[in-house]
């Protein structure tokens, strides 16, 4: 309640009183976090009914372990990006849009909290729409920017498609059950087909692969604190919807297979697209598609298990997926903050124009690297714990045998491939941006960002490390949430020796640091001799000779060329003394450009054809009238005489 209050006032006072607003938002975040923690730790759901009716439906809020997981994430990232925005989108820098930004940020967080709490279909939809629209206004905060507007519109359009699916979903649900109340209704098997509508609606929001078309441009063109919020939290709302309704409704037999398949495809193709991006934020956005895929794999495994004898391994995978929701949310927000600082310092998002930033902005570089390690799922950080749990679930599923094995084993292999690709992607992202020599003047003039920027990053990094090193604190929480998905006798907790893993992680971390320090001391014992990079004999290597991100991802890109459809325009050097040569690569938004655009073209052609009928000739208008009359007459004639 307190959180809601603070956020609501934040919407009101946000525009004017920046400091108060941050205070309020952080308070709200802490309050929400507290509520979530209480529910997760205590294990008793928090339920609140009020006689007060909104839109004819009495308010009914429910916070169970499942929604608490997401609520905690909303709280943390919401608070962090609020603080970050203070430095990143300051009133000095953006006098007109900063106040608007504060208002919409509060509104968006508030709406997301509302969605998580609502246990009434009507209220869920209300919150959902408000959250979508406020996100739109956040993306297009910089109204002058054409790209941002285009991206925002694409986002809005795609989301509306999803929303209409949810219209149908909730409409059918209400029509079949006779009330808007939500809750477990697994026994009512007539509702099973509805899951497809929910899947369509929530997949668009979650950025699952074929439906991800809006995601890259929106996340790339939004202000970075918004990107963090959207990529870290907003797409998780789609996940929330899927998890929630796959748990509450009966699912059709084919659904688990579809979900796990979608997950695998998103994981591999998403990261493949990320690998070849040259726009840092776009790369991060595509990486979100991958992580959504990982989460969906976990969910799909859980659904498979639930429909095939309810083996405990499903819960294990689901718990892993839920933990990954947290991990990805934290790490991805951290990375987007880092990208924001880079953008703030250099004014460009193009990887090929950056380089050597670690000198100018060591803090950002370090935190970004940490985020990269976390998002690659490498021990000893949090990303690994989540993926490890998902893997355990999948392996147990495979060893359990039966038909589910045919779903989970390929998924595990897909995850491994995606993991390796992610590693390549983030080596490229962090190394090309922060290491080596500055490639352009922009990168040379970079400067470290202020505490408002690196403060939140530090906090998020701390959380990443905490989850990684002390997973046994968080394991019971996610395990409880996984239990709240569909009540079952099996307890998940004993299935995974998380404590041991945590111990291993701690030891590893200690040894990593120790060894690094030791070697460092050894190297600096007698002063190392500085020298230019020995570039196989080149006297003076220039920054342009460095390996570019494009060529770094080149090898793996060729394996996915069928999906990436990279367009190259090569201008080869000619003659003994070539004057100029160039090689431009463009990575198209395959799905958008090869699938969506043609369909849209068809529709627009139809529209043009119809609009030509309104040509201004009155005579024909009367012809239309007569035609309408005739048509109605015909209809009645056909219907009328039985």
């Amino acid at each position: 309640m307190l959180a809601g209050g603070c956020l609501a006032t934040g919407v009101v006072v946000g525009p004017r009183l920046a400091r108060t607003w941050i205070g309020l938002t952080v308070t709200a975040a802490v309050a929400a976090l507290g509520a979530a923690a209480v529910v997760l730790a205590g294990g008793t759901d928090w339920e609140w009914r009020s006689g007060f009716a909104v839109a004819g439906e009495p308010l009914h809020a429910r916070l169970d372990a499942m929604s608490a997981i997401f609520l905690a994430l909303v709280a943390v990232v919401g608070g962090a990006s609020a603080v970050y925005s203070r430095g990143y989108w300051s009133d000095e820098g953006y006098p007109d849009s900063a106040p608007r930004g504060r208002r919409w940020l509060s509104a968006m967080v508030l709406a997301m909290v509302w969605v998580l709490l609502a246990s009434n279909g009507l209220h869920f939809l209300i919150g959902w729409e408000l959250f979508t629209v406020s996100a739109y206004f956040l993306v297009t905060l910089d109204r002058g920017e054409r790209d941002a507007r285009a991206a925002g519109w694409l986002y809005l359009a795609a989301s509306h498609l999803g929303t209409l699916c949810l219209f149908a979903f909730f409409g059918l649900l209400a029509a079949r059950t006779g009330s808007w109340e939500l809750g477990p209704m697994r026994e009512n098997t007539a509702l099973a087909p509805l899951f497809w509508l929910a899947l369509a609606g929530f997949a668009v929001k979650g950025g699952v692969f074929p439906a991800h078309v809006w995601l890259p441009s929106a996340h790339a063109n939004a202000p970075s604190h918004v990107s963090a919020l959207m990529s870290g939290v907003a797409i998780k709302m789609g996940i929330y919807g899927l998890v929630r309704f796959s748990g509450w409704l009966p699912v059709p037999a084919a659904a688990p297979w579809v979900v796990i398949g979608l997950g695998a495809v998103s994981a591999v193709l998403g990261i493949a697209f990320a690998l070849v991006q040259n726009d840092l934020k776009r790369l991060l956005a595509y990486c979100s598609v991958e992580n959504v895929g990982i989460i969906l794999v976990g969910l799909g495994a859980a659904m498979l298990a639930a429909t095939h004898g309810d083996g405990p391994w499903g819960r294990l995978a689901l718990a892993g997926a839920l933990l990954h929701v947290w991990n990805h949310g934290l790490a991805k927000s951290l990375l987007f903050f880092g990208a924001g600082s880079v953008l703030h310092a250099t004014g460009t998002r193009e990887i090929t124009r950056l380089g050597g930033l670690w000198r100018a902005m060591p803090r950002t570089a370090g935190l970004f690297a940490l985020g990269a390690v976390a998002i690659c799922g490498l021990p000893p950080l949090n990303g690994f714990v989540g993926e490890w749990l998902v893997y355990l679930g999948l392996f147990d599923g495979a060893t359990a045998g039966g038909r589910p094995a045919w779903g989970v084993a390929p998924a595990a292999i897909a995850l491994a491939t995606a993991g390796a690709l992610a590693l390549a992607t983030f080596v490229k992202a962090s190394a090309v941006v922060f290491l080596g020599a500055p490639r352009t003047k922009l990168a040379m003039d970079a400067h470290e960002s202020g505490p408002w920027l690196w403060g939140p990053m530090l906090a998020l990094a701390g959380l990443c490390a905490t989850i990684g090193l002390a997973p046994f604190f968080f394991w019971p929480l996610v395990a409880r949430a996984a239990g709240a998905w569909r009540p079952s006798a099996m307890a998940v907790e004993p299935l995974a020796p998380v404590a041991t893993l945590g111990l291993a992680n701690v030891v590893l971390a200690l040894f990593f640091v120790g060894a690094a320090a030791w070697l460092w001391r050894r190297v600096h014992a007698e002063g190392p001799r500085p020298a230019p990079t020995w570039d196989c004999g080149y006297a003076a290597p220039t920054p342009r000779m460095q390996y570019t991100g494009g060529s770094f991802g080149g090898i793996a890109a060729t394996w996915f060329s069928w999906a990436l459809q990279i367009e190259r325009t090569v201008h080869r050097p000619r003659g003994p003394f070539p004057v100029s040569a160039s090689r431009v690569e463009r990575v198209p938004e395959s799905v958008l450009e090869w699938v969506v655009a043609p369909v849209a073209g068809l529709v627009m052609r139809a529209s043009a054809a119809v609009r030509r009928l309104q040509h201004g000739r009155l005579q024909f208008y009367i012809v239309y009238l007569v035609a309408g009359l005739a048509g109605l007459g015909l209809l009645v004639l056909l219907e009328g005489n039985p």
Partner: protein
Amino acid sequence: MTNAINLLVGLAMGLNLIALGSGRLPAIIRAMAVQGVVLGLMPPLMETHFDWMVTLVAVVTVAVKGFVIPGLLQRALRAANIEREVEPSIGFVPSLLLGAGGTIAAMALARVLPLLPEHAGSLLVPGSLASVLTGFVLLIGRSKAISQVCGYLILENGIYLFGLLLIRATPLLVEAGILLDLTVGVFVIGIIVDRIQRAFDSLDTRKLTVLRE
């Protein structure tokens, strides 16, 4: 009594054909005016005993439909000094054929329609249908505003004819209101035609295609 009515209706149908066939605007206007007068005469004839209300309605109808509107249109015509309907989108011969065919079809349709015995013999239904059709043909097939107005009037005359079936059933007040509305409506149209003539100084509606899509 019915014969008299039928005679008048037949006359009205003939006038339809004239309006369809003639290319000269004054002729169309005249045909429309005469038809208005003819229709105006009908209600009193149908009433068995004298009713001042009906007479009043008839007088008003005759006055407006027979003289005021035609006069207005004539004025617009003079102002625009056009005589003929040039290049109609449906030629005169085709429209004439359409009208004739429509009349025959109306006759046939009137046989099919379930009518009360006392109306079975009367030409009212076919007449009204034929006039409605004529009205549509003029509205669609002519390009001069004036001839379209005439078409609209003939359309309404047709409906008026049908209304006569109910003259005993529906209270006179309603009839009067309807008539009033029609006349006012046509009057307004006349005014707008006049304004258009001033704004575009032409009555060729093919010029009125600025607003599209």
